[in-house]
């Protein structure tokens, strides 16, 4: 061990020397070392030889110490005294090691500048040396561990020294060093530092804090009660006099002198609980009442045992030799010895259990010894029972319960809100009589409250120290410091000094200062505890209250923006305790204000800019509001304690490169909201080629079938529309209906479904809308491909989604148009279950039979066990359910289109007479009303269309309304192996975004709109009709002439369009006929 160290240490010494030089130049060492130590350090650091001596000397000493023997007698004297130099060396080493810590645990935060400096130094060294450093530091670590007894002291010492520097400066005469000026700069900082952040806090005190707080509140309640009631009415029974018979005499004395004291019952009881000898062997933190109960039980037991006159037969269990049949008669034997044993093992939960056991002894005795005359034992038993009766009176009837339970119950009882408590609390604290209780609390707490009383003098006493460096900074510090003091005072010590006026203040101060030096670290923690007691009590009682509730009723643990902001600011500002303190005590509003003021560049300017704005906007006002505000502030019960605001924390993510979050996370202003976004990418799974549904095999066939199915639905809808005489205006809605299937299909892939849904309403011609839909998707795909995809994470959600996608496809294939998401998820769960059991079966077969069976056999067996009796079934499935199904679908499609054509062309004219058409509100649209009055409304005659098209009516031919779809149906239908159209159909219309701007003029689009408007429109039609019929011919004609002009102009465009379409239709019709003829010929 020693040799090894000798080998390594030189390098380490070098490195440490360099670091030490750096620390020296930066004056950083003053944060770690006492003045005297820093003197030694400075001496040592002047040259390397001295340094190595300084360091290795302690090393030698350490090893000697570690060996723990008298081998080096020369050093022994040293070890006993522990010279200053050695202590300094320890601490210097600790300091240097501390500097290296950031090297071992990287922190990428911009604020940690120190480590960067060291970093630079280490970068300057050559790599091999660096390696050695690492080795050396490891070794150092090891050596430190080896010298555990010596090093254990270090942390404590460090914290002490951190604070003792200034404390010593203030009170005792500072050593005449050149470092004092430096120290002076630091001291106020350090002092303001005291109560807060640089302590490690644990939660274990919270329970105590809660209980204390509750006591306080209870006490206040009592206080109020005492004000109302006459305290003398209370009897001693409140104090549980009977139960505490260890304090019998004290209680009696108190009772006698009751009138003399002013104390209320509750206070007395509190006092008594304090006075009572604590921590007996029965005491248990978690078992309430155990101490009390067992104390008295033990006493009872002892008394009974000592009642030798009668107790002897019951001391031990009955000997079988004496009474051979005893255990036949007595099923539950019991004796005092056993009771003692049980008591020691803490088996008893209540007085009753204990008493039951005791009585059982006598009961057993009486049961076994039935002869009242002959048996001595009966007498003994009866006597013992009497004695027990007597003694048990004194045992308090306490049920031992778990602390948690009890407190929860208590909490429930205290139904009144915290606010009222708090106000009363504040009010009563001012009352002089109460201070005694405060003083009586604990001696430790006394310390805590005393210290701040002494300290306010510091900044005033040495004001000259402050402005040494930067005026504003110092001012700022002072203010902060002052705040701290005031608030501390406000919390705990206001009335304290008054009531304890007996003690000389100076003397006390001196004592305290001595104490400060001794245990500053503990003190710090005490102060922290004191400051935050209320908050912690509130938090923990809240937590407990929550834990009472069933899980469903608990309030959700939620992240809130402000808290997170605060947390992150604290993280960022962890170097300046001042800011942190402000952050902790600030209310939410002020935080918001602060954020608003200085939200640009929070991290960069955290120290300078934000502090200033904080000061200006918030703190200064606070100060102006004087003490009261401060007291309010510090005693607020909703301090922000980062230890408790766990949910606000944002774990530091180191390994994510900078550019990916920029892409994946949108709107990352300050990295607060982005956390939720991370891991959830809104990129649809569709875009990952690896998980895409393959476009070969059955999937392709299924896709084809789906395509046909959709076409079928469309044609079917149109057929229905024609047949049921759906008005033209309603066609829009009916046409969107087949789109539902697409929505259903796209349901699983979330963003796509939006597209599908939004594309559907445009469905003027549903055919192209789907085309557009697809091309749109393709476009999007392409655009996405250009970007980089976030890497696919196949987690449970993703795979669920994928499974759902497949299931959706199959569902649609089976003929469903949409499904509820719950049904979908159930189905996909079933599918998942099936596949996983398939996999499991395969696994089982594989594990057991892989030597005996071929792969095919294993596979067949697996399939059989999962319901596929033979491979043939799978083939059948493909053949019957996909291929044949497809044929059948095509068949239907063909039939549907043909019957649709027939509906449009021939038979419907009969079916849909003029009258029926006239009933609808389409009369105007189709111009049918004009026919009624023998007028060519659209001017078909003028255009010569009637001859051209052989129209027998002057309305727009019926087929034209629906005809457009027919074109599509034929174009896509199975019969479409005709020659390509000479004139391609007109390009699709420009998509219109909203329905309102749709040019068609009964502007009824949505269903509700239709409902609302249909009525009046129809009425209007009716009226129009009537009036027109009544009107004389001349007027009508005049009107018509006018209208004609207008309409013709307006409609010229439309008619032209229609004409074109008509031509197309004609061509198509002819082609159709030809095709049919051909088909017939073929058949023949």
């Amino acid at each position: 061990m020693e040799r090894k160290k000798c080998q390594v240490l030189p390098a380490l010494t070098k490195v440490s020397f360099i670091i030490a030089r750096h620390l020296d130049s930066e004056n950083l060492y003053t944060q770690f070392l006492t003045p005297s130590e820093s003197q030694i350090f400075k001496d040592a650091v002047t040259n390397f030889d001295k340094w190595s001596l300084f360091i290795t000397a302690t090393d030698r000493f350490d090893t000697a110490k570690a060996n723990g023997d008298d081998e080096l007698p020369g050093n022994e004297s040293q070890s006993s005294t522990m010279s200053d130099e050695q202590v300094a060396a320890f601490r210097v080493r600790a300091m240097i090691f501390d500097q290296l810590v950031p090297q071992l645990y990287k922190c990428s935060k911009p604020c940690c500048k120190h480590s960067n400096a060291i970093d630079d130094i280490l970068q300057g060294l050559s790599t091999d040396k660096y390696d050695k450093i690492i080795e050396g530091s490891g070794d150092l670590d090891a050596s430190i561990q080896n010298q555990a007894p010596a090093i254990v002291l270090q942390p404590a010492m460090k914290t002490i020294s951190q604070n003792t520097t200034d404390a010593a400066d203030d009170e005792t005469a500072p050593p005449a060093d050149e470092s004092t000026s430096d120290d002076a700069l630091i001291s106020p900082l350090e002092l303001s530092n005291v109560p807060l952040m640089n302590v490690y806090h644990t939660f274990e005190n919270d329970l105590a804090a809660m209980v204390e707080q509750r006591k306080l509140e209870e006490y206040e309640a009592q206080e109020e009660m005492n004000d109302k009631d006459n305290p003398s009415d209370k009897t001693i029974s409140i104090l549980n006099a009977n139960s505490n018979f260890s304090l019998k005499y004290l209680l009696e004395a108190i009772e006698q002198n009751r009138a003399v004291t002013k104390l209320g019952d509750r206070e007395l009881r509190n006092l008594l609980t304090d006075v009572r000898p604590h921590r007996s062997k029965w005491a248990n933190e978690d078992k309430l009442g155990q101490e009390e109960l067992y104390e008295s039980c033990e006493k009872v037991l002892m008394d009974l045992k000592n009642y030798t006159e009668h107790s002897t037969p019951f001391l031990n269990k009955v000997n079988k030799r004496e009474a051979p049949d005893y255990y036949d008669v007595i099923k539950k034997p019991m004796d005092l010895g056993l009771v003692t044993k049980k008591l020691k093992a803490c088996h008893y939960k209540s007085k009753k259990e204990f008493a039951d056991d005791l009585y059982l002894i006598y009961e057993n005795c009486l049961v076994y010894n039935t002869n009242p005359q002959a048996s001595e034992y009966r007498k003994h038993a009866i006597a013992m029972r009497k004695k027990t009766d007597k003694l048990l009176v004194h045992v308090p009837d306490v049920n031992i319960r778990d602390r948690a339970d009890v407190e929860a119950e208590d909490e429930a009882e205290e139904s009144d809100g915290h606010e009222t408590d708090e106000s009363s609390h504040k009010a009563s604290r001012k009352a002089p009589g109460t201070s005694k209780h405060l003083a009586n609390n604990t001696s430790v707490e006394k310390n805590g409250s005393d210290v701040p009383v002494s300290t306010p003098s510091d900044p005033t006493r040495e004001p000259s120290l402050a402005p040494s460096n930067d005026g504003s900074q110092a001012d700022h510090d002072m203010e902060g410091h002052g705040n701290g003091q005031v608030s501390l005072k406000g919390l705990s010590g206001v009335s304290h000094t008054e009531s304890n006026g007996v003690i000389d203040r100076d003397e006390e101060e001196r004592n305290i200062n001595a104490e400060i030096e001794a245990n500053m670290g503990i003190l710090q923690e005490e102060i922290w505890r004191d400051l935050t007691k209320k908050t912690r009590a509130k938090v923990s009682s809240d937590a407990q209250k929550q834990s009472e509730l069933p899980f469903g009723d608990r309030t959700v643990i939620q992240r809130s923006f402000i808290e997170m902001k605060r947390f992150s600011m604290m993280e960022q500002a962890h170097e300046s305790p001042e800011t942190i303190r402000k952050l902790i005590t600030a209310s939410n509003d002020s935080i918001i204000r602060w954020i608003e003021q200085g939200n640009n560049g929070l991290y960069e300017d955290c120290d300078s800019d934000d502090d200033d704005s904080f000061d200006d906007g918030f703190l200064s006002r606070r100060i102006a509001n004087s003490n009261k505000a401060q007291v309010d502030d510090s005693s607020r019960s909703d301090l922000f304690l980062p230890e408790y605001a766990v949910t606000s924390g944002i774990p530091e993510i180191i390994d994510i490169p900078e550019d990916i979050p920029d892409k994946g996370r949108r709107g990352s202003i300050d990295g607060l909201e982005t956390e939720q976004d991370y891991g959830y990418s809104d990129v649809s799974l569709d875009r990952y080629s690896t998980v895409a549904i393959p476009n070969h095999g059955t999937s392709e066939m299924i896709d084809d079938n789906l395509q046909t199915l959709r076409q079928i639905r469309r044609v079917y809808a149109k057929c229905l529309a024609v047949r049921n005489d759906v008005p033209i205006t309603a066609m829009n809605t009916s046409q969107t209906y087949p789109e539902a299937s697409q929505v259903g299909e796209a349901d699983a892939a979330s963003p796509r479904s939006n597209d599908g849904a939004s594309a559907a309403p445009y469905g003027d011609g549903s055919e192209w809308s789907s085309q557009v839909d697809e091309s749109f998707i393709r476009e999007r795909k392409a655009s996405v491909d250009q970007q980089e995809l976030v890497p696919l994470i196949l987690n449970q959600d993703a795979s669920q989604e994928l499974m759902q996608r497949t299931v959706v496809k199959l569902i649609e294939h089976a003929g469903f148009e949409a499904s509820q998401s719950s049904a979908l998820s159930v189905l996909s769960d079933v599918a998942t279950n099936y596949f996983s059991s398939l996999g499991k079966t395969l696994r089982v077969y594989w594990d057991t039979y892989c030597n005996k069976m071929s792969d095919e056999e294993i596979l067949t067996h697996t399939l059989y066990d999962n319901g596929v009796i033979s491979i043939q079934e799978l083939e059948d499935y493909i053949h019957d359910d996909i291929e044949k199904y497809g044929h059948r679908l095509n068949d239907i499609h063909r039939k549907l289109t043909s019957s649709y054509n027939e509906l449009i062309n021939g038979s419907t004219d009969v079916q849909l007479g003029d009258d029926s058409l006239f009933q609808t509100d389409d009369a105007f649209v189709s111009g049918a009303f004009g026919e009624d009055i023998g007028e060519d409304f659209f001017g078909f005659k003028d255009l010569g269309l009637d001859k051209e098209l052989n129209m027998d009516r002057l309305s727009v031919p019926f087929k034209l309304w629906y005809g457009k779809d027919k074109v599509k149906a034929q174009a896509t239908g199975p019969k479409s192996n005709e020659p390509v159209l000479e004139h391609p159909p007109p390009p699709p219309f420009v998509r219109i975004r909203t329905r309102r701007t749709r040019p068609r003029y009964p502007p009824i689009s949505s269903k509700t709109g239709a409902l609302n408007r249909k009525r009046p429109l129809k009425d209007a039609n009716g009226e129009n009709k009537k009036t027109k019929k009544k009107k004389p011919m001349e007027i009508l004609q005049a009107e018509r002439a006018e209208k004609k002009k207008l309409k013709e102009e307006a409609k010229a465009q439309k008619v032209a369009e229609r004409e074109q379409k008509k031509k197309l239709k004609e061509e198509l019709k002819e082609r159709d006929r030809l095709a049919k003829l051909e088909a017939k010929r073929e058949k023949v």
Partner: protein
Amino acid sequence: MANTDKKTRYKFQSEIQQMMFVFGEVSDPLPETTMLVEDIVRSQVIEIIIQAAAMAAKRNSRSMNAEDLIFLMRHDRAKVNRLRSFLSWKDVRKNAKETGGDQVEDMMEDSAAAEKPGKMHRSIIKLSWELVNQFSDVFVKSSKDEDSEDEDEIEAYNDSIQRLKDADEITRAMTREEYVHYSECRQASFTYRKSKRFRDWAYMSSFIDVKPNDDIIDSLGFLTFEMVSSLTEGAIQIKTDLATLHKDESAAAGKKRKRESGDEEGDETTMGLFSLSKNDQTPLEPLHIQEAFRRLQLVPQPLNTFRRGLVRTKISLI
């Protein structure tokens, strides 16, 4: 006593015997076997009736129709097809009767001659759960509708042709008397002209309130025929399997003589002067039927794999 009891319980012994003979069993099978078959068939019929009645109840109708029956066996496409074509032919026959032509009777009887179907207009039951029929309401009945033939029908037709061919194969070497007997047996039915007996036999009245119509009874008869067929064929298969297993000792001969069945193994084994003919076939024993039934019942339940607890067992319909 026992005899009369048996008589009351088993009413279709002769029919079963005939059917089994058609499917390859000896002409006089063991009475235990036929009784077992009858028990099985009856339990199956009862099960079918119960389930179909439940189905009808789900449709909110008191009387069941053919669709309810078909729905129960919708997974067995071939059977569904057969049943459908059976029903459609029955429909044809009924229509023809109403119009009063003997020609149809002839056609039915000569069906072995494989007359081309589809000459008469047949109404085929539309299965409402098939997607295809969802859209059929708008079809315009046009005379030029050339595609009357469904693929299913074609399949059913091919299937029946195959069966007839097999039967033809069997009967080819028969003597005249044998052939007469065979064709008589082929017409054996549980329900033909004895629907009352059938209803009583299956305790139908206790499962359905409304008296089922002829269609139902006839389809049930058809199904019982199929049941006997699958049972017998399965049992024969099992028997031959067993025989090949114990080939050495299986020389023990049955005394019953089987008529002619072309599918006996060759006679390479030694053939003494007094040794029994290879064509001799032993009748099926109940254990064969039981095994066949067991196999038919053995349906793997995929979703219960790895999580099979106490699951209610169901009779799977043959």
